[in-house]
């Protein structure tokens, strides 16, 4: 029983699915039973996933598991195999962390809704499907998991249709556009099977490597890439994401941004780097980077125009996925490090932000930016967590968003320098600019929701219960820790994943037997992390603390000389807000009024974008069809 852990992946996935049905059978009446089942299933799956760190990350093993013991015979893999390499485990960890936090949050957050048995069933199915998606070693199994994921996501999006009929609309769009994506992926799988006669990813990788790219393979690649791009919501496929994230319950939005669109990114990395090994093609790098840059720009500019807290966060989610795709698409090692690190950070800070949005909704009953305000005094802990998340996503040092963005900028500019292509310079500038715009729109949220004056309806708002604060605290702590110790995080967490990506020989060998990869022309190429420049946030923070202490010391020692501090005791006119000599009234600068100058100058752009996001299912389907066609054609024309 020395390697009993090989059963862990399959147990964790199946355990989640089993629990989903157990909840439906036993938990529909009793809320304690259903929550206990869900929590135990999530905890168990997460614990097993985390345990795999030891063999996979520390010892560098690749775990393989054949369903029903159907091992490959005669060089052909017939059975369904599960295979966990560094990349799969990396995304598995993000998934496990996300659903664990979300299930902790759900207990109090969802307590006012009915039909919670269905909620936990779908929740567990979503968790299980994404975990299965990143652990599986079989392309068709991947497709099945994608379909279960879409199915559960759609149902969860529509979960609150009683209070918010828009949820139905979001769910329907998500379903229609998602089905185009999964159908395309299936088409790609079929075409791939036509040329390789196998569905096992390791074997496909080896066979494509030895046979070279044929037109059918290329078409398969194009359609699979397009299908996964739809699943990871890059522009122009981002519209269902914005609708679904905004209308789903916040705990579900956390799942969406933390694992569902990561699943798409995982698929793209697996596809381009390992399955087809096409990342040595300049044209594909250009395609992915431009898609990424477009995604982050469109996402962030649309976010600036939003009036709803969660819809704004949804567009930021899209924008940050653009960063990841751009970095991964650069095809350099530094880009991979930056991209994967940013994917991880995105899970942390965007999950945190969606949780705070959920807390605001729980406490006030709305997420409309124009109706909120002044919550900082009433919900101080939520505000603190939100600020951590906002600073992290805007890339303020020393939070984690800065560390990964910093690597991404270096990677992009280095790529520009190596390739001599001016497009990469534009991409770098875009990436840097998008970061400021992200800051701008979070300033808008901060000002509109947490600071300023509270409207009369929110006077009695109270802080959310501890059960909801706990996951927010954990996420905030992780955000700060990953930012301060980014070097250690990269070495221990990101590095194994990058090694797995750049070194697919081991992946193939574990599945198909020793020497199979080498026979098919896949050699080992291990990598190490080297950054272009150095920055030590711990040292900086240390100095920061020292100087702050010094300043505070001076301030305290000079307190007698300094003027007195006058705290407000009750509402008197001395401490009232200055209102141009008038009595102070409730006046709050709502979210829509901010950035007037900016929006006026870019009126044309915002008008066009507003019209394009028309909300009509047909228009969105047209976007998807055009985008998919372009991607497929591009790969077919430029990759051969």
């Amino acid at each position: 029983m020395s390697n009993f852990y090989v059963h862990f992946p399959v147990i964790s996935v199946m355990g989640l699915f089993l629990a989903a049905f157990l909840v439906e059978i036993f938990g529909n009446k009793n809320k304690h039973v259903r929550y206990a089942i869900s929590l135990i299933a999530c905890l168990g799956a997460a614990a097993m996933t985390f345990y795999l760190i030891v063999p996979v990350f520390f010892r560098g093993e690749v775990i393989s598991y054949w369903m029903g013991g159907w091992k490959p015979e005669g060089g052909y893999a017939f059975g369904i195999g599960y295979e966990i390499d560094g990349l799969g485990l990396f995304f598995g960890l993000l998934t496990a962390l996300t659903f664990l936090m979300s299930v902790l949050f759900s207990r109090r957050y969802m307590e006012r809704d009915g039909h919670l048995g269905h909620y936990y069933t779908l929740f567990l199915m979503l968790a299980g499907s994404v975990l299965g998606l990143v652990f599986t070693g079989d392309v068709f199994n991947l497709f099945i998991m994608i379909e279960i994921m879409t199915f559960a996501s759609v149902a969860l999006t529509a979960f609150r249709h009683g209070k918010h009929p828009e949820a139905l609309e979001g769910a329907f769009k998500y379903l229609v556009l998602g089905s185009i994506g999964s159908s395309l992926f299936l088409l790609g799988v079929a075409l791939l099977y036509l040329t390789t006669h196998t569905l096992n990813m390791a074997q496909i990788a080896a066979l494509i490597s030895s046979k070279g790219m044929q037109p059918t393979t290329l078409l398969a690649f194009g359609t699979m890439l397009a299908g996964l791009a739809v699943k990871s919501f890059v522009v122009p496929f981002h519209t269902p994401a914005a609708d679904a994230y905004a209308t789903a319950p916040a705990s579900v939005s956390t799942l969406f941004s933390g694992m569902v669109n990561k699943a798409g990114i995982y698929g793209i990395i697996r596809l381009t780097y390992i399955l087809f090994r096409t990342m040595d093609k300049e044209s594909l790098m250009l395609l992915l980077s431009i898609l990424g840059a477009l995604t982050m720009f469109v996402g962030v500019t649309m976010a600036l125009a939003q009036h709803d807290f969660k819809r704004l966060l949804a567009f930021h989610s899209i924008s940050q996925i653009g960063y990841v795709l751009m970095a991964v698409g650069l095809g350099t090692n530094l880009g991979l490090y930056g991209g994967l690190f940013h994917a991880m950070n995105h899970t942390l800070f965007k999950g945190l932000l969606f949780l705070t949005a959920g807390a605001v909704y729980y406490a006030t009953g709305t997420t409309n930016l124009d109706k909120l305000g002044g919550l900082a005094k009433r919900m101080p802990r939520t505000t603190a967590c939100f600020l951590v998340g906002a600073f992290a996503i805007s890339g303020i040092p020393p939070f984690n968003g800065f560390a990964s963005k910093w690597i991404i900028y270096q990677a992009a500019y280095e790529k520009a320098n190596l390739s001599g292509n001016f497009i990469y310079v534009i991409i770098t500038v875009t990436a840097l600019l998008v970061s400021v715009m992200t800051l701008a729109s979070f300033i808008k949220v901060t000002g509109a929701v947490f600071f300023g004056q509270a409207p009369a309806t929110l006077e009695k708002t109270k802080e959310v219960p501890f059960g909801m604060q706990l996951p927010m605290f954990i996420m905030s702590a992780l955000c700060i820790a990953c930012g301060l110790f980014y070097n250690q995080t990269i070495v221990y967490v990101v590095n194994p994943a990058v090694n797995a990506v750049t070194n697919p020989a081991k992946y193939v060998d574990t599945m198909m037997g020793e020497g199979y990869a080498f026979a098919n022309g896949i050699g080992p190429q291990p990598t190490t992390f080297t950054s272009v420049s150095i920055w030590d946030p711990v040292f900086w923070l240390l100095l920061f603390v020292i100087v702050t202490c010094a300043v505070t010391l001076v301030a305290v020692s000079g307190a007698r000389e300094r003027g007195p501090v006058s705290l407000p005791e009750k509402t008197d006119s001395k401490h009232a807000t200055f209102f141009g000599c008038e009595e102070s009234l409730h006046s709050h600068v709502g979210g829509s009024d901010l950035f007037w100058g900016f929006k006026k100058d870019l009126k044309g752009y915002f008008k066009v974008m507003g019209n394009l996001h028309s909300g009509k299912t047909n228009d969105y389907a047209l976007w998807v069809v055009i985008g998919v066609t372009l991607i497929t054609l591009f790969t077919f024309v430029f990759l051969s």
Partner: protein
Amino acid sequence: MILINYIVAICLIALGLYVMCAKRELIKIVIGMGIMDYGINMLIVSIGFHENGTAPIYTLSDIINGNLSFFVDPIPQALTLTSIVIGACVDAMALSLVIMLKRRYKTTDADEIRRLNG
């Protein structure tokens, strides 16, 4: 014989996409999704098809002689079965959403179901 299968499959996929893009009625959009699924299913079945193929029953001597191309590939058929089931589920889900939408929005016209825009 097999070429016509491919052509029909591609036509079905294109038709499905066209319906999704052009028809404003929600039920028609769902039908478009269905048509696209059928096109892909047809394609997958055709991939496994083999002229004059038999059922996939073979003996050890066939494997040893490498004589394995006389039967129809069973895996695409298995894939198709799975895909049909999934397609049916998705369609059922979509139709149930349409019913709910009709109840709440009092319409099934995609042009009027656009509260989430901008």
